[in-house]
């Protein structure tokens, strides 16, 4: 089974998000990027499938800052092939363009299964997965939290309220991964470093970016915080004391 996992980097929300002078986008110089966490689950799910049977896992990413670490980490977890797509990524890229780039390249790999994160927190024009599926003429199922493959894929798709549907999907297919069957494994940094010495990142040029299909952001702003929480001051002890008072006043205690 030839499994391909396209991944993308997203702003790290732990850092402060700064809006640039245009007022319409995040300041790229103030951004720290990290792997989209759902893509991390997609990598894990691919490696779990590989471990259950024969298979090759190829991870594909646009060549932007921080992506080497993400790729080598995937290799340290068990990915077989690492690919970077070079292009003019400097001004950011929307998912419509990214899906075209991924589909255009990935079709040359002839995958039977494509696993990718079901979404990313900065998606403004839908997820990459279903768009790729259409370009490649494959079926798509998203919000997947478990996959078994044979001559078809059997997937667990999540619905609200904790209900799950077990679905049959004709291969080849694209699956949007919400959560891998097991949490993404931890690899020590020493192992990632060791992998860097042996693993190789292959580089291919991306097709010309074609951004049509996404909306244009005219203004980016922080949400209005009209009714912000009343903040309780002090250390944990002081906060606990105040909370007990609040619990009493509101009849919780």
């Amino acid at each position, binding site marked *: 089974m030839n499994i391909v996992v396209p991944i993308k980097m997203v702003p790290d929300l732990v850092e402060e998000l700064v809006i640039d002078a245009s007022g319409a986008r995040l300041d790229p110089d103030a951004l720290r990027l990290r792997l989209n966490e759902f893509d991390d689950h997609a990598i894990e799910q691919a490696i779990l499938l590989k471990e259950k049977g024969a298979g090759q896992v190829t991870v594909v990413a646009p060549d932007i800052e921080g992506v080497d670490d993400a790729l080598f980490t995937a290799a340290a977890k068990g990915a077989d092939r690492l690919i970077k797509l070079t292009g003019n990524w400097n001004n950011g890229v929307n998912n419509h363009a990214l899906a075209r780039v991924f589909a255009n390249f990935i079709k040359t790999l002839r995958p039977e299964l494509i696993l990718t994160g079901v979404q990313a927190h900065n998606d403004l024009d839908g997820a990459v997965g279903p768009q790729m599926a259409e370009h490649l003429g494959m079926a798509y199922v998203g919000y997947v939290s478990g996959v078994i493959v044979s001559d078809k894929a059997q997937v667990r798709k999540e*619905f609200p309220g904790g209900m799950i549907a077990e679905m049959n999907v004709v291969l080849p297919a694209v699956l949007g991964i919400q959560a891998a069957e097991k949490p993404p494994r931890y690899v020590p940094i020493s192992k990632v470093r060791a992998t860097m010495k042996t693993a190789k990142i292959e580089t291919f040029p991306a097709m010309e970016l074609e951004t*049509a299909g996404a909306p244009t952001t*005219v203004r980016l702003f922080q949400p209005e915080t009209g009714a912000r929480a009343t903040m309780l001051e002090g250390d944990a002890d002081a906060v606990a004391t105040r909370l007990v008072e609040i619990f009493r006043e509101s009849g919780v205690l």
Partner: protein
Amino acid sequence: MNSDIFVVIEHLRGQVSDISYVMLAAARGLANATGGKVIAVMLGHDVEALARDLAADRVLYIEHAAFADFSSDAYQRTLENVIKENAPRAVLFGDTTIGGDVAAWLSTHLALPLVSACRTFRADGSAPKFVSQICGGKMMAEGDLPAPTALVLMVPGGYKPEQGRAAQAPELVHGSAPALDDLRVTVKEYIEPAVGDVDVAKEAILVAIGRGVQNQDNVELAEELAKSLGGVVAGSRPVIDQGWLAPTRLVGKSGKAVKPKLYLALGISGAPEHTEAIGDSEMIIAINTDPTAPIFDIAKFGAQVDMLDLMPVLTEQVQQAKGLA
């Protein structure tokens, strides 16, 4: 292109989801601005009666046995025709496990623009604008609603579901489905949520933990706190995905919506996928070390302390308070 706003109604196993009513409320405002009608599109099998309380000018109901379950394939092919035939100004989908599988595919297939994570529309005299909630609820992105037909994935929070409910049944017309006998995506069976465990939707006091709990061992601190308060522990997505809490304890988009007397959110940032399910809580108290965490925007009280420091002392103080009472 015409000026009508289409809303793809989401329903599962005989129930219309709240997001459908939220979208109808949003569509009404948009239709007032464009001068068009609100058309609810419902794909279903023997569920025509569900259309009764939809606040739409018209319901386009398409019946087919394949719609007994949700198949992305069946929805895509059917809605492709609906959009081509009607060329509405906008088509609204839930930014959900259903809409998410359909809208982005249609955007690519029909070469129509797509906006996701849309929370509200603005139409104050000028061209309608979308306002989307991104970056885990930390940023809002605003822009012109793209033309000719904007496909829009909507998140809850911007409109009240009650505004999308009607007292009188709307006019209903029947549409026809294309051939759907070679679907690539089919439902084999449903797995109901595990029973036997507590139902977080029915609990009065919830101690909810998020990523800030850091590891499984610390979950016990939350259990002790919940016990002292007479409540139970719930969690956000990362905690469930790590296997630290059972999936039945998940509060959020693919878990339960809750309405407790007290929702104590510990180390939960407040991403939209989570907060959409806690809005009906009587009181939300948020504890987070990140002062910019969006959870503070919806909480009544908040404190910027480490949940790991707070939990043991709070448990002790609650126990003491109860002993004195």
